[in-house]
């Protein structure tokens, strides 16, 4: 789990927030806080698919499916099996 969290954090701060030195807490809201907007949400989904081989359907791209790094990592973990 740890490595997924780290990989996700790195990707989001460098590619989406463009603040490579920023830290994201594992329970920090990402979507409902406005940190990740709807255009960038698609980038997260595409990245998750490429990096982990896990698909997030377009109807799932909202804060109800995942809003924090922990939730996203859990989603990836549950679908990898």
């Amino acid at each position, binding site marked *: 789990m740890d490595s997924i969290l780290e990989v996700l954090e790195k990707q989001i701060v460098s590619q989406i927030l463009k603040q490579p030195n920023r830290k994201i807490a594992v329970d920090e809201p990402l979507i409902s806080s*406005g940190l990740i907007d*709807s255009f960038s949400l*698609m980038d997260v989904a595409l990245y998750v698919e490429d990096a982990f081989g896990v698909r997030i359907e377009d109807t799932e791209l909202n804060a109800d499916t995942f809003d924090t790094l922990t939730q996203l990592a859990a989603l990836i973990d549950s679908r990898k099996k």
Partner: protein
Amino acid sequence: MTTFPERLKTLHSRTPDRVALTLQFSNADDLSLTVDQLLCGASSYARALTLAKIQPGEVVVLILQHGEDLVYAFWGAILHGAIPSIMPFLTEKLSPERYRADLSALISVTRPAAIITYPEFEAEVRGALQEGDSVREVIVTDKIEKQIDLEFDSLAGFQRKPEDIVILQHSSGTTGLQKGVALSHQAVFNQLDAYGKALNLNEDDVVVSWLPLYHDMGLIAGFIMPILSGIHLVLQSPFDWVRAPYKLMQSVTKYRGTLSWLPNFAYNFCAQKIRDRHLEGVDLSSWRVVTNCSEPVRWESHQAFYEKFKSYGLKREALQTSYAMAENVFAVTQSPLGGEPAVLEIDREAFMSERVAKLASEMDASQSAMKMMSSGRPLGNVKVKVLDENRNELPERVIGEIALQSDCMLTGYYHREDATQQAFHDGWYLTGDYGFISDGEVFVSGRKKDMIIVGGKNVYPQDLESLTYEVAGVHAGRSVAFGIFDEEQGTEDVVIIAEVDSEDPAEQQKVADAIRLHVTKNSAIALRYVKVVDPKWILKTSSGKTARSANKEKFLKEM
């Protein structure tokens, strides 16, 4: 000379059973409505407005999402002779308090007589109402009596005259919502006649659109024009499209779509983010005109879009451009069909510093060239000229403010005589946009003073700066907002810079996060860069105003 209701009646008498509109949903089957079904649904809303004692000529604000109710309520208001204005619906991104404040601001200027919304949103709307304001009725969709007979003779809209105001268009944000563009039946028809010719519009056309109806491009090109021209419209929700952009391609394939309009960023978005597995069976060969409009048009974006979709039948000459604004109903220009929009290679340095478009053929090899794509030629009913600061006409290829004259201009900003007066000079409408003309082609180089255009949406920087001042730790007057062009996204990224007293990096990060959260929640605009700086970072003019362009240059240098 005609009116919207007269045109609808004519369309109904000719082909009542033709499919006028297909609504698409993310979680339900497509819903196709014939002309008769559309107008029956609309007349149930016209009836409801009559029962609510709303008078023809009064404004009705629609707060509805993509779907049947929105289209019925819009055309129902038209059939009743009321003036519909579509307000964006509250999304999860925006704070309800801000939404209520924006709605109150709109009500105070526009003075609508009624608001139509969903029962579950009624309380939210009533929360924005104030004692003694103009709103007499909040009409909820589940109280509408459906299934009523269509009787044209009983509809009040047939009393309206061509010069009467038929619709109001607002742009977004606190500033935009207080400036409603009022358009007459005649102005809209003059636009449709001229634009229809430029597009070679014919009854076999099929418009496919995901654009929101509260912006001119979606409302006119992606809604009113196809309906009033008797052309099949396939309509998706912008919120579904942004999560599944491939659905545009699938819909063009399924319905043999011929016409679409897209803001520039959508070309990059589609080219970069659509997976090949979503394009199985896609055939774009029917697409004859895909018009890039509503933010600066980029040749590179067309190129990327074409490379991505050419093997799916996309024709290069389908990719066209337009320059448009609500004040002219919609289109001012359109690139001529049959070829590609004109592209000029000009000297980057001369463009930036001397405000002239010097052709690359006249340059030294050492100078760097940039490509500018034309937005096309003025429509048959529009005259365009470029003015200097003293409002004198400039020669070709010199950059100045674009001014226009046409028979499809706004009647005025609704209840804003002051703003209307300011917008015109000597019978010419001053767009506030900058550009130049070359061989009859209009090139747009920059937008409304400091206006930011992100994803096709106009954003007033002062709205974002005001919100920043509401964050603890930021002082009034010590923030600046601007847009910087993002090559990869094909649109502008929003930057906010704010000065704080603390020089502790952890504290600064906290304020930066708070700004991001607060501004996003209150504007529904995502911020790409939030930079918190020490006092005295922000450059001011001698009169103490924030100089946005100077701060932008400073930010870009430090990046």
